[in-house]
């Protein structure tokens, strides 16, 4: 068994595994069906509901993701009525891609909505995919927690955005 190189798992395959519950993104739950005429895929974490897009290059999916987000904001009430578990104070995008433009992560704080990025990692061999994992992008540096009483960036965002 080995870690397959980036791009070994095609985006439709990644989507399929996510929708069927055969792969999971840490801390995010995925609604296992496409919604609306756009076929939007929805995921959620404790405070945000996301539209999910998968592609080889981030630039290929970003525009579609923003249009999905606009759809979600318009149809949010309907989505919540069907899937009450998606009721969250924030709406954002969750993008899964093999290739991210250099320095893209530095633009994230400028977005007016939550944006989470992941890279798929295939584990198996060239013939059989054993499992699919997702690595946050940019790779997270484990911060040494000096004071558990300090508030995190996520908490700051939650309590300062209205």
């Amino acid at each position, binding site marked *: 068994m080995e870690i397959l190189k980036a791009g070994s798992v095609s985006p439709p395959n990644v989507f399929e595994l996510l929708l069927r519950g055969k792969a999971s993104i840490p801390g995010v739950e995925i609604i296992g069906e496409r919604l609306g005429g756009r076929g939007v895929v929805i995921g959620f974490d*404790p405070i945000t509901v996301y539209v999910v897009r998968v592609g080889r290059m981030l630039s290929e999916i970003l525009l579609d993701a923003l249009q999905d987000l606009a759809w979600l904001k318009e149809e949010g009430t309907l989505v919540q009525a069907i899937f009450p578990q998606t009721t969250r104070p924030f709406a954002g995008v969750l993008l899964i891609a093999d290739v991210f433009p250099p320095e893209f992560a530095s633009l994230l704080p400028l977005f007016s909505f939550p944006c989470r990025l992941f890279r798929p990692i295939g584990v198996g061999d060239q013939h059989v995919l054993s499992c699919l994992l997702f690595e946050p992008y940019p790779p997270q540096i484990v911060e040494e927690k000096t004071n558990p009483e300090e*508030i995190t960036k*996520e908490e700051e965002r939650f*309590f*300062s955005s*209205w």
Partner: protein
Amino acid sequence: MSPESGGRGLREIASYFLTATPPPRIGLLRLGSPDLDMAVMAIAASLEHAGKRVLLLRSDHQPNGGDDLIAVRAGGFREGPLDNCQTGNERLGREERASDLLLFLLHPECPALSRLVPLLSLLILLLPREPAEVLGAYRSAKRALVARRVPSCGVFAAGEGEAVATVLKRFLLGLRVFLDLHPLNFGTAAATCAREIVTLQLESPAEPYFRGNP
């Protein structure tokens, strides 16, 4: 003396002399501007009105006059100093025994906060009215709650209007998501808050707060 006041008087006399179970302690942590102290006074008065004998302890207590340690405030509740705790003051020990509830008016800069929080039966966060103050309020609340044993906590937002309701809702969700707490909702009116407190079955502490003279 009316039968009602006579009954109450007897109860007070009895509680002065009998060894009773110490009353539950409720901390009211002010997370907004000092005018929230008025909300604390209103809650204490509502509790007294609901038949609970309340002793409110606060660090900025001003006696009514003379050297009387305890002041009786409008609304009928008694008020005493917070900084005299555990100093062996017999009067405070008697007042505690005569009470159904001990309320502590706290604020984030209160030097005794970290020592007091683990001694409480319930901690109620008094939320700010302005959304701009919410982040600072959450920071103070987290500092008070994290790594300290609080049996239960709740939130109260004094006032009316959508902004107050939004602050209350956000705190209820935020405390649940980020601190894994299940805060009780004490509403936005003193009378509602008092009613909720009365319906709670708060456990009494094992030891009285004021030890009295050895």
